[in-house]
């Protein structure tokens, strides 16, 4: 079957454009430094463009781009030997969040708490909780088992709740779900 290559390119570029805001949000949330994140997005665009033949149209462009970005990110870290974690403590030292009313968490405080998570947990909760990937997709992106992603996300949630002082002992584990179920049943 003859396909029109110019049409494929057009779609590729358009699909890429559509995926960029979300990709950039992931990069900035993961890395915190906007400049570094934007550099990484730029590298990702060029890498993706160069290997666009390997993208299968109609598959998940966002997942494909995130995979490229992530590989690029970790390979840059390996090359530079740069520590991923916040080495100068600029973010972490600012964190002094008192237990607050639920729902009144400031976005800046949330970012600070997020920055304190280990890289793999931050990545996992961003992919699942913000990028909106399914656990299976996130597992494929990170090249690890689904169970690993699940446990990273749940550890990330617990740690964030702890850091932000929004622990809610009622909602952990199967007991909480049972309570919810029995409470719902009791209403009837």
């Amino acid at each position, binding site marked *: 079957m003859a396909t029109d290559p110019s049409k494929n*390119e057009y779609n590729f*570029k358009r699909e*890429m*454009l559509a995926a*960029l*805001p*979300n990709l*950039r*949000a*992931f990069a*900035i*949330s993961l890395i915190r430094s906007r400049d570094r994140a*934007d550099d990484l*997005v*730029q590298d990702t*665009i*060029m890498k993706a*463009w160069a290997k666009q033949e390997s993208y299968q149209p109609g598959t998940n462009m966002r997942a494909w781009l995130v995979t490229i970005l992530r590989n690029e990110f970790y390979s840059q870290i390996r090359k530079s030997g740069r520590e991923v974690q916040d080495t100068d403590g600029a973010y972490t030292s600012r964190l002094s969040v008192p237990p607050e009313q*639920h*729902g009144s*968490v400031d*976005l800046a405080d*949330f*970012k600070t708490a*997020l920055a304190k998570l280990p890289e793999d947990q931050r990545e996992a*909760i*961003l992919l699942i*909780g*913000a*990028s909106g990937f399914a656990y299976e997709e996130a597992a494929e992106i990170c090249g690890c088992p689904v169970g690993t992603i699940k446990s990273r996300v749940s550890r990330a*949630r617990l740690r*964030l*709740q702890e850091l*932000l002082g*929004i*622990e*809610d002992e*009622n*909602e952990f584990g199967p007991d*909480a*779900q049972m*309570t*919810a179920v029995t*409470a*719902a049943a009791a209403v009837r």
Partner: protein
Amino acid sequence: MSMFQSDQDPSDKGTSPTVPDSGRAVISRKLRELYDAVQDEGIPDKFLDLLEKLDEAENNAKASRG
């Protein structure tokens, strides 16, 4: 924002709706806020320019190949 407002989070089905803002719901909302803040900026011009250049370079290469 009303303190009685409940956070309807689809990923949060396990908790009772009588708990208005569970820790889990707060985190879900903050994650979305975090992304929204960036996504609302749209695509920076430098990326649009870059894609334009990549597109042009490719078209030129094709044209010269005939």
